[in-house]
């Protein structure tokens, strides 16, 4: 028995050979499910990014450039739906959560491995339905990713199927959430107390709560939209006495918390990276851990800040603005504590840390612009302008996206057992960083000058900044290609990575790279906190 176990342990989860593709798409191994997510999520990111590039290209000159207005409208709708529901929401839990959570808490797998696989299948079905929506019915939806009623009830495009696709993706997200909460409660290694959990686990745990508590609301909202379109029950339709603002409430009750589904895991990633490369413990572990819960909690009562000019009540506006400002505080705590963790440290400037720095820079700009938008009277001017577009690309891409890239560079050696070229990765980061700011910073200025979003065409005064932004998108594209190229090259040609290349202290580094199917030979004993580097300085 012992020798047999020893033998399987030499075989990594990647190499375990038992029958081609079906050993992947029907695998219940959390690490394989994570790779399934990685491949599907990145493919869809590629598609969404290409659409973004096309949109930019259309705006290179005034008037029609390369497409008709209806095409442009479908483009930003599909871009938004892909980036939100098919890329950034599933990316962090699906890839990082699945791969790391059991490893980090010293478990063999998640609590419900088969459910886990099922949630990937739901993801796949949702993606297929979304793709089908482009070619059936009245063609690709043109409502914006927000599906605002009553336009979404009237348009002839295939909103019904797109909405159903999002519903199925919601199911996938819920199953992941249920799995992770149960896993954190039930599968921790015996000596893994709550306050020894890595901060990424805290972040994923909080995320999972949002996933299960908020997602059902969008589920029922989308069912209502379908019922409206199919049977005309009238709830959101002013012509029948319904209220379109009610739709907005329901949509944002989910979709604001959803932005924290996107960002929380990335905040967790950064909380892992900082101490490892500062070679010292994190400053204020408890504050960082509990602030994740606080973001999840307060984040569920601020949704109305998307509706300041929707025509809802003045009272509601004031209350929602107030809570919106409160929710910035837990984020602030995290940023302060990261910076404080560099004090009296011993900084190793490795690639993951550089990506983490970029994250802090971009997320702070994004977060601060969120505060500007949260201020009532300022929002009246800036709502639905390019300022908002800039804000959410900074937080979603500069924040959540760069956090994901940082995570890829941090855990790449663990996931694939290969090392990438740090120099190339750093060069890619430089391109990404410059490109990103050139691409999105001009949008702040456009917005301040009143350029509305979702505009196929624009007035002459906006032209120059649009051009800067478009050139930025090309620099950015070059950076992305270089970054992914470097990683893909390393996947096949990179040198072998050791078990613990960064000399980190969390459990996932205590097993081989890549980890064996069983994760650990014996369930590890946890003798110290996650950021105790005393023995491995």
């Amino acid at each position, binding site marked *: 028995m012992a020798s047999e176990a020893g033998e399987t342990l030499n075989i990594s989860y990647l190499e375990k050979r038992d029958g081609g593709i079906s050993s992947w798409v029907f695998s219940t191994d959390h690490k394989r499910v994570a790779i399934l997510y990685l491949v599907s999520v990145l493919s869809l990111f590629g598609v969404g990014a290409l659409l973004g590039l096309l949109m930019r290209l259309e705006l290179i000159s005034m008037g029609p450039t390369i497409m008709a207005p209806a095409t442009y409208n479908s483009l930003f709708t599909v871009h938004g739906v892909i980036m939100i529901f098919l890329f950034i929401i599933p990316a962090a839990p699906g890839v990082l959560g699945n791969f790391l959570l059991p490893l980090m808490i010293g478990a063999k797998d998640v609590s419900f491995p088969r459910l886990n696989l099922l949630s990937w299948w739901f993801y796949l079905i949702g993606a297929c339905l979304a793709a089908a929506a482009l070619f059936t019915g009245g063609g690709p939806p043109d409502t914006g990713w927000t599906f605002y009623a009553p336009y979404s009830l009237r348009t002839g495009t295939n909103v019904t199927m797109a909405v159903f696709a999002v519903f199925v993706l919601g199911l996938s997200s819920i199953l992941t959430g249920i799995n992770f909460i149960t896993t954190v*409660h039930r599968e921790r290694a015996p000596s893994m107390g709550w306050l020894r959990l890595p901060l990424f686990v805290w972040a994923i745990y909080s995320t999972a709560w949002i996933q299960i*508590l908020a997602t059902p609301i969008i589920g029922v909202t989308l069912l209502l939209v379908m019922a409206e379109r199919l049977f005309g029950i009238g709830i959101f339709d002013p012509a029948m006495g319904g209220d379109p*603002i009610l739709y907005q*409430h329901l949509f944002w*009750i989910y979709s604001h918390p959803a932005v924290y589904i996107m960002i929380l895991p990335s905040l967790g990633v950064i909380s892992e990276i900082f101490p490892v490369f500062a070679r010292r413990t994190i400053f204020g572990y408890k504050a960082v851990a509990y602030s994740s819960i606080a973001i999840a909690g307060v984040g*569920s*009562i601020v949704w*109305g800040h998307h509706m300041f000019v929707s025509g*809802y*009540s*003045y*009272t*509601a506006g004031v*209350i*929602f603005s107030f809570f919106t400002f409160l929710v910035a505080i837990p984020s602030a705590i995290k940023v302060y504590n990261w910076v404080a963790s560099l004090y009296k440290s011993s900084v190793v400037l490795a690639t993951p840390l550089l990506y983490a720095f970029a994250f802090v820079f971009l997320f702070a700009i994004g977060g601060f612009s969120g505060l500007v938008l949260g201020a009532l009277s300022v929002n009246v001017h800036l709502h639905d302008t390019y300022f908002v577009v800039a804000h959410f690309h900074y937080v979603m891409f500069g924040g959540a996206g760069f956090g994901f890239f940082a995570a890829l560079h941090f855990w790449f050696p663990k996931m694939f057992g290969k090392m990438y070229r740090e120099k190339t990765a750093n060069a890619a980061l430089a391109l990404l960083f410059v490109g990103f700011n050139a691409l999105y910073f001009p949008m702040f200025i456009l917005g301040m000058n009143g350029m509305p979003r979702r505009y196929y065409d624009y007035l002459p005064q906006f032209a120059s900044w649009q051009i800067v932004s478009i050139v930025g998108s090309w620099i950015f594209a070059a950076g992305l290609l270089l970054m992914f190229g470097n990683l893909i090259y390393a996947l096949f040609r990179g040198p072998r990575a050791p078990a613990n290349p960064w000399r980190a202290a969390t459990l996932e580094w205590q097993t081989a790279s890549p980890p064996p199917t069983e994760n650990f030979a014996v369930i590890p004993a946890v003798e110290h906190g996650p950021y105790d580097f005393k023995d491995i300085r």
Partner: protein
Amino acid sequence: MEGKNGPIRETRIYVYLASWAALVGLTFLTVWVGTADLGGVAGLVPFVIAAIKALLVLAFFMHLWYEGWLLRLLPALAVVIMAAIVALVISDVAYRG
């Protein structure tokens, strides 16, 4: 710590029967209250009764009475969040000018 592993403690059959009887009784009560004209806050009474009935089901049929803190916390958490959301939505409808 958070709920014992293994099967939970046995619920006596008479507890089930008593809960059932209470639920039936409350159903008739709520119909009576709902159709009688009590005025004032009467509109809320059926919901108070519904909450009591739900608690009975949760506590005995669903065994929460015998569970650890974590599972008992869940419905409480749900109620708090739901109340907050409803309050915020009402802060809109009730004050539309």
